[in-house]
């Protein structure tokens, strides 16, 4: 069977402590549950392998995948390596939290074929780590990266959160200094958001933490961005920067609207014109033995596919490929949303070149509103809908973005 979904996401929902800002599908870590969860994962993965699915990228995320005990960690990674580690595989990332990765797990990963590790540093400020509810101290991150390098990992990524309550320009500078010191190839720079139901949001409502005003967050974000650029990183997506050639192919596939399969409790899937999720329930997932219930199944439809393409591609520095979009839409971009584009260009939020439509620096700062405006201004009557709604094959599935650059 021809593989239609080039990305594979594996969800490991366990954490020892939930971070105050986190609203992901996460469960408290218990070794026995984790073991049985991995059993179920292997069954679901085996089924996928049986379908003939061969991913070009694998991403194990969480939760905290690295919290798995060495045995379960080993079983999962070795299975993935054996089943999917062939020539098709171009990138294999595992998320690791600085405090939970050790030499043994690093070596297991390396041997299985993992070639990229993403670590959640978030900040190097002790105060910031406390506000964010992170377990690790500021010193642990550098140690973890050193350990991973020693184990042979060359592709390392580090997450930073910008705009936490109390963050100062000096704290941003300190984070930048540490990043330069650790020197990962890839940095994600996320704005803190106060998601409903999180501890941080409750603290905000109770007045125990005071969010930084938006203009201050933007000032800090600009400082971080320019610091990272000075250090040789270039932004390729609204919140991701890297050194040349270090893009996360797995995540790039999402922005390019490539297909992917998700394995594990709560994992999202996009294949054959539909998006769906596995039911987010660790217990049910284990009991289902790798055949989880599919929920939120959604046929995207032809218009939906074009809308998604529009909003996903604008997250990228390279923006929307106009010619390709127009070919898919069967109409000119101007006919579909020319007025909204003109307005946004006039406001300095988008740039329209001959080949692409891209967000400006300022546009990236208010990207959600830009996308909403554009989306709202679309008139799909103009489009010739040809019924092609599946994953767009200009993703890493087709031409490799690595060669693309």
């Amino acid at each position, binding site marked *: 069977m021809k593989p239609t979904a080039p990305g594979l*996401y594996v969800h490991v929902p366990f954490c020892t402590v939930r971070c105050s800002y986190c609203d992901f599908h996460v469960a408290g870590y218990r070794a026995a549950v984790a073991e049985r969860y991995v059993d179920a994962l292997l069954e679901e993965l085996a089924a996928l392998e049986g379908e003939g699915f061969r991913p070009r990228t694998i991403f194990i*995320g969480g939760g905290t995948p690295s919290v798995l005990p060495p045995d379960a960690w080993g079983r999962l990674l070795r299975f993935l390596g054996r089943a999917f580690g062939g020539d098709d595989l171009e990138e294999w990332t595992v998320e690791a939290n600085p405090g939970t990765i050790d030499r043994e797990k690093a070596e297991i990963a390396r041997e299985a074929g993992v070639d990229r590790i993403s670590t959640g540093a978030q900040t190097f400020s002790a105060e910031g780590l406390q506000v964010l509810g992170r377990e690790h101290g500021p010193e642990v991150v550098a140690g973890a990266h050193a350990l991973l390098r020693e184990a042979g990992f060359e592709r390392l990524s580090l997450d930073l959160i910008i705009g936490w309550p109390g963050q100062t320009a000096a704290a941003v500078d300190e984070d930048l200094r540490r990043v330069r010191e650790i020197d990962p190839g890839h940095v994600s*720079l*996320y*704005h803190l*958001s106060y998601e409903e139901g999180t501890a941080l949001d409750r603290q905000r409502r109770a007045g125990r933490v005071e969010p930084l005003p*938006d*203009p201050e*967050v*933007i000032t800090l*974000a600009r400082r971080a961005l320019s610091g990272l650029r000075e250090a040789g990183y270039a932004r390729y997506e*609204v*919140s991701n920067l890297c050194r040349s050639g270090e893009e996360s192919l797995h*995540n790039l596939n*999402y922005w390019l609207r490539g297909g*992917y399969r*998700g394995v594990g409790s*709560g*994992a*999202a899937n*996009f294949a054959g014109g539909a*998006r769906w*999720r596995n039911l987010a329930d660790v217990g049910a997932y284990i009991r289902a033995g790798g055949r989880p219930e599919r929920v*939120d199944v*959604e046929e995207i439809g032809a218009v*939906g596919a074009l*809308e*998604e393409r529009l*909003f*996903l591609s604008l*997250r990228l520095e390279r923006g929307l490929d106009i010619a390709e979009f127009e070919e898919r839409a069967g109409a000119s971009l101007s006919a579909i949303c020319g007025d909204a584009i003109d*307005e*946004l260009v006039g*406001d300095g*939020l988008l740039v329209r070149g001959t080949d692409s439509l891209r967000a400006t620096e300022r546009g*990236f*700062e*208010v*990207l*959600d*509103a*830009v*996308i*909403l*405006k554009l*989306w*709202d201004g679309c008139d799909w009557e103009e489009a010739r809908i040809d019924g092609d709604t599946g994953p767009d094959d200009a993703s890493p599935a087709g031409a490799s973005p690595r060669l693309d650059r």
Partner: protein
Amino acid sequence: MSDATPPIPQERIRNFSIIAHIDHGKSTLADRLLLRTGTITEREFRNQMLDEMDLEQERGITIKAKAVRMIHTAEDGLTYQLNLIDTPGHVDFNYEVSRSLAACQGALLVVDAAQGIEAQTVANAFLAIEHDLEIIPVLNKIDLPAARPDEVKEELQSTFGFRPGESIAASAKTGVGTDEILETVVTLVPPPTGARDVPLRASIIDSHYDTYRGVIVYVCVKEGRLRAGDEILFMQKQSKHLVDEVGIFSPGMKPVDALEAGEVGYIVASIKTIHDVSIGDTVTTRVAGATEPLPGFKNPQPMVFCGMYPADNTDFESLRSALERLWLNDSSFTFQPETSDALGFGFRCGFLGLLHMEITQERIERESGLDLVQTAPTVTYEILRKDGELFKIESPADLPDAMHIEEIREPMVTANLIVPSEFIGATMRLMEEKRGDLQKTEYLSPTRVQLTYEAPLQEIIIDFYDKLKSSTRGYGTLDYQFSRYRKGDLVKLNILVGGDPVDALSIMVHRSVSDRRGRQMLRRLKKVIPQHLFQIPLQAAIGAKVIARMNIGALSKNVTAKCYGGDISRKRKLLEKQKEGKKRMKQVGRVNIPQDAFMAVLRLDDEGE
């Protein structure tokens, strides 16, 4: 069917009403009287007490209790017919109150023994005095720990001249004083006069629309006799109807053979719309009828207008039918289509006053389920053109070009405010701000003062009650009555959002306060209009002259950083939701204005000034 009770001679009929300030216990006392006379059961009494807060229920009671007949055996051993005629509790319905009072010979003036005399107590009492009614003061809620009967008696004496011994101490809640009230009604209130063997003259005191039976007309027969089968004539309307049924309320509708002079009841006569019935009109028989109508008829005119628009423009027709339904039951409310650049298609609605407007809006929203956008209430202005033409406008949008205007006249009211004396200063400052002229200061008691002002109605309908309450820690009460149109230095204040004038935000203001009003409105708008992707200039202008300006800064940050795998679906749903939200906003130029902005600008708080 016929009335089971034996006929009661006219000299043993007592027509009376209960007048009170809102919340002083009028409806509970009415229910207590109905219970005591066996007109309702203990269980019905309890249910009504329990549900009193519910507007629907209140409305039910009002209809039912509009003119209830009670049969009561007094201490003299004789049976009396007591007709309790309800009056609307608010000044907006002043004319209806006066029509109801015209059907009575007596009134229970209910005063909360803890609160004392309030503005509506005074207004209603003077109306009753004007109608020459026998007034029986009742100190209600005497069971409350905070009751201060002696002071309130003193207020009653200094305000109306009642001697302390004349007041009845009562508690509608516990039943204390009920017998004394009934006995006093029997002994003090005179029976109605009016011959029975003369041509019919009955006064219409109210009406309501019944889906099955058409309009139910409430009448008080002044002279003659009204029977089923009579062919009747409404003397003002000049419309003729055949009476299908006459009856009384006790408290449900109960057919009787005839309504005799002095009696109160209803007529069913296949009348299709309430607009065929005018309150205050005189009913007579078509054949051998009266030649002169009863005095005092008036056509109440709406004084307060506002625009009502469906939040979603596709709901225009639904709004129209909701308004039509309401109109069936409310003859004093008017509406006609109007168009606004900002709000699209809607209606200009007229009301008797602020409360009437609020009740009506609430009812439309509740009964139709429609989401409404409402514009600033405005009064009717009289415009005298240079060419001598005099006309009224109901919307600032209808104001002619300044060059054609000789003068603009605004409606003035006489406003009575009753406040604890410690708040005189605060109240006077408020009234000064509201362009009021103090006309009279009267001490009702050493601690309570009545201030009488002449003030523009426009100032009273915007943001006044709240301010009065906050200036007097909730103790101040207000009552007002239209007095006259007065020439004023009035201007139309236009609001520009993003450089575009927003017609629905225009208001008429006095030139002396236009700067302040302009700034207040802009400050409000700044609060309610969300940040956009660009800076939005806000301006207040009179003609071409900008008198205030302010900016809403561009959105500084709006980006969801993480958007992994499954988040794509979530993100899309979020976008769709936001898009829906945007649809409910009104677009002016490039700016989306939330619907509540149109009303919010009126809450002219002085924060930040």
